[in-house]
């Protein structure tokens, strides 16, 4: 597989990262080097193996449906720079 600068730019866009051209060139080389090494994974026969998304068996766990205390709105907003009295403020959508 070839890791091109175009592919790295497209991955960066998906990840919401704005890269300089120097960064694109550096990460293209790094990713190619690393992913080439990781291609070893394709040698494993996993046709009849289920994936493990956790290392131990986890059965659905749910706590009792009881009302508890929540963080107050003012507290939650206190950590944000851009806000109104009642909401977080974000950039424009367009």
């Amino acid at each position, binding site marked *: 597989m070839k890791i091109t600068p175009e592919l790295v730019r497209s991955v960066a866009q998906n990840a919401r990262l704005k*890269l300089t051209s120097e960064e694109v060139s550096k990460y293209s080389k790094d*990713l190619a080097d690393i992913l080439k090494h990781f291609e070893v*994974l394709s040698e*494993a026969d996993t046709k009849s193996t289920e994936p*493990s998304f956790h*290392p131990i068996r986890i059965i659905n766990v749910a706590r009792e449906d009881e009302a508890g205390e929540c963080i107050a709105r003012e507290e939650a907003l206190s*950590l*944000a720079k851009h806000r109104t009295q009642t909401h977080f403020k974000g950039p424009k*959508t367009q």
Partner: protein
Amino acid sequence: MIKEFAKKARAGSIDLVEHTRKAIESAQKINEEYKYITELGDAISRAQELQKSAKEGKAKGKLFGVLITAKDAICVQNLESTASSAILKGYKPLYNATVIERCLEEGAIILGKTVQDEFGFGGFCTNVGKGYSKPKNPNDKKRVCGGSSGGAAGITKKADFAHIALAESTGGSIANPASFCGVVGLTPTYGRVSRHGLISYANSLDKIGAMAKTVEDAALLLEIISGADPKDSTSASTPVPEYSEIPGTVQGIKIGVLESAVDERCDNSVRKAVLCAISKLEELGARRINIELPLNSKYALAAYYILALSEASTNLAKFCGIRYGAYDTLNGTYNDYFSRVRSDNFGDEAKRRILLGTFARMAGFRDAFYTQAAKIRTQLIKEYKEAFKKVDVIITPSMPTIAPTFEHVKKLTPLQSYLMDELTCPPNLAGLPHISIPCAEHEGLPIGLQIIGDHFCENKIIQVAKTWSQISK
């Protein structure tokens, strides 16, 4: 020993305010030179409160008056907690992580937060976020502490007061710095300790653990922080033994020696030290059984990195400069704003790992990388389980070398840095408990012995580690 200190403090025979004041002075002095602590808590007020309770005969708790530090990724209420990343600069959590709550209930005093590789992304603690200083090895300032819990290991080694550290491992971030700095690093089974309040690196791999000067002290901290937590659905309800009371013995213990871990890929001094330690344990009644884990040796590192970085790239997607942490002026569109804040504040390695993880999950590549790595993980866990039918514990070096110099680390490519994790990635990927203890020195620098156990068999690794610490005194 922490237990004796807490006992004396509860009885009122230690002036806790004075001890804490001296500890802060000492920590500040150490910090000027070695850069282990990012933020100090209000330890004096807490010490005064505890001292008052001792005077009133109300003192209680296994950590009464003991100073603890928390790796920066562990949230402490009102104390800046950033996982040593500029993107979380200014973030003061509104709540405590469960492990912090449990330590406070036992009478601990929060000394402060310890520096780490940004979000845990590194094995040398040289990938600290923008604006953070790289911690120096307590044994030689030209060398690295190891990572990612580098600050935790450094302060544990240098502290001349009653102290234990909360650290965290995703792929070796406790064993690695414990080995390089010469302290005990105890990583529990995945799910043994609640992750509630931990700034995540990779949800299926993160484990909060303990660092201390002795096996007993690390076991005591693990005993306190372990157990089910309704706030973390992946925490296990398996009963918690009194880890700190486990006696040191290896009589009849079957030690699996992973031959591929002590071959020519390891430095000669490390190989010799580890084999010598195993021989001494044999003399005390342990039985040595040579084993091989061919699938783990071949695939664990690659599978670990693919899964860890895939999970990391989704976890870090939430940092966008809106609700907390770093921010910018509100102009441009959502995408412009998010991309600007993220690009300005994430460090070089964080960007590299986000790119790799995003790539491994993208349509067209996901089956070959992410899903394939998760399937291989099943096979690797099975291979370990087969081995644990024959042996009680598996011993390897913690790291293949002694702590490298900053100069040496600078010359490594990212891939070469990742390859340094080949001994710590396999047990971490399989979620197995492991402990690193100092077993020898080479050129004045410590060598770590890694003891790995089966899931929820912390008791066995503690009993072997304790035996080693008794005979190596």
